[in-house]
């Protein structure tokens, strides 16, 4: 009898732990499979928690003033609000607008010009940028190596206190991989959830969107991950050539990575340099202010013809991409009890 009880208990434990690990990742229905290779970095709740603590810890910057979250705030789908160009330590101003951190598991390259080829390597860029956190990975590991808190967190995550660059980077990746936004009104409508429908205006906006925007901002991620020139005039001070900085090919001049539009209502200002403060300004750009150049995307050569009503409808549709479950998810916020 006793034996049977123990066997049952073990079975239940095994089943529970299976369910538990399964819950950490779920590809939303009808979405493509993620691009990130989870086999090399299997999600695990203790590692996610370590990544989350690191993400919110200013110890990652040279004067302990700036954390990842300083430029990527959870309340704004992890972008820097109000600032066109992101601010780093000692108020040094960067050269680009911080993008939202959403659905990164599907990302094939990162940064506006695709300079980073793997999510694991992304954290190195701000960490070692003089205008951002101005640190080195080796020194950050040394600093956190002295803290009991991190010894505990590494031990729980990796069953060893040894802090390597690999573990540090993979933990931050794990936290970022959990930032999945797939429960906006748009998603609920597409899934055919009961009682949820587009308004007439949103519906008209959706039709316009599919006609004019979806070739680049492709559903369900709202990006096709390619690099395009969407007709922005070059900023005379920043002189940002985009993708060409990486490939040094003139055919890539002024091309930037097509950004997702999920939670776009919350992530102003817009574009790689944050030049537009509102969605109205973005649509004014696409309809009336396209700058022609060699690499301009062909579908934008003549601008996109939009009436004032079309613009209102498009904006109404774009606002259905706001995911309140995502924006208020406590799991993503500052870890109060690390």
């Amino acid at each position, binding site marked *: 009898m006793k034996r049977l009880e123990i066997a049952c208990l073990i079975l239940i434990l095994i089943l529970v732990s299976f369910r538990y690990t399964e819950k950490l990742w779920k590809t939303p229905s009808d979405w493509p499979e993620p691009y990130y*290779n989870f086999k*090399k*970095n299997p999600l695990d709740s203790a590692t996610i928690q370590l990544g989350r603590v690191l993400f919110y810890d200013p110890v990652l910057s040279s004067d302990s003033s700036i954390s990842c979250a300083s430029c990527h705030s959870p309340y704004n789908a992890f972008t820097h609000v109000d600032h066109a160009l992101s601010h780093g330590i000692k108020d040094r101003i960067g050269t680009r607008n911080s993008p939202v951190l959403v659905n990164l598991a599907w990302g094939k390259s990162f940064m506006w010009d695709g*300079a*980073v*080829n*793997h*999510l*694991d*390597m992304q954290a*190195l*860029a701000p*960490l*070692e*940028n003089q205008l951002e956190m101005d640190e*080195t*990975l*080796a020194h950050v*590991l040394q600093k956190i190596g002295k803290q009991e808190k991190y010894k505990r967190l590494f031990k729980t995550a990796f069953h060893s206190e040894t802090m*390597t*660059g*690999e573990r540090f*980077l*993979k933990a931050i*990746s794990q936290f970022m991989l959990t930032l999945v936004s797939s429960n906006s009104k748009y998603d609920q409508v597409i899934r055919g959830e009961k009682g949820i429908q587009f308004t007439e205006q949103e519906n008209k906006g959706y039709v316009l969107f599919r006609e004019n925007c979806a070739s680049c901002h492709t559903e369900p991620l709202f990006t096709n991950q390619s690099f395009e020139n969407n007709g922005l005039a070059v900023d005379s001070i920043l002189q940002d050539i985009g993708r060409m900085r*990486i*490939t*040094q090919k003139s055919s890539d001049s002024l091309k930037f990575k097509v950004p997702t539009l999920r939670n776009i209502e919350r992530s102003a200002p817009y574009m790689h340099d944050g030049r537009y403060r509102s969605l109205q300004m973005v649509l004014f750009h696409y309809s009336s202010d396209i700058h022609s150049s060699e690499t301009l995307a062909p579908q934008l050569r003549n601008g996109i013809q939009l009436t004032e009503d079309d613009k209102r409808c498009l904006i109404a549709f774009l606002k259905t991409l706001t995911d309140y479950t995502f924006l208020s998810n406590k799991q993503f916020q500052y870890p109060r009890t690390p």
Partner: protein
Amino acid sequence: MIKALAYCLFLVPFLGWGQFTIDVNLTLDNQIIGLNNPIQLNDHSFQLEQVRFYLSKFEFYQNDQLVAVDPAEAYLVDFDLDSTRKLIFPTIQSAQIDEIRFLFGIDSLTNTSGAMTGALDPMHGMYWSWQSGYINCKLEGTFLSPKREAFQLHLGGYMKPFLGAQYITLKNSKIGNTQLDIDLNSLMQEVIHQKSNLHVMSPCFKAVEYAQILAKSIDQKP
């Protein structure tokens, strides 16, 4: 008796019999050179302050047949750390080897595979942060005369057309352990010749050219 024999066999790898080792040296015109010492080259003198590079993906051949693949991903050779200049391959029997193939640098696949451990851990400072990719080779120093001038070569790149890693094949004429000399003569001649390129810090054609020159300067001594 059998026990004693097994014991001896067990000890063999520790005694170093049979296991294959490679000693890496920096040379200039076949003279071994080191860091932080003035070095004369024609009418120039310079000193090296940092020399670090990756050697990776070792394969061992006999009569053109692949005998063994080294399980280690890569070695980071750092002339500031003597221990890193000796590469030890405990599972390779030197007697069988007549050819070694390896990469000077890190291949494209490894460059796009995310965070790695050991020699490939980005905490060693051999990874570009603002743009992904391993720095295959860091060579830094100062010209002391005729004019004091720093030079800094960070060679890398994993995307076409800037593929930095170089395939090296060496015939192991003499059976036994080997010494690998990297002669800086051609490279430094070129650096002197190209004074406008004293700071190569990102993937570009110049970086590929310098890496090719270095690859040609790798020679093996029994």
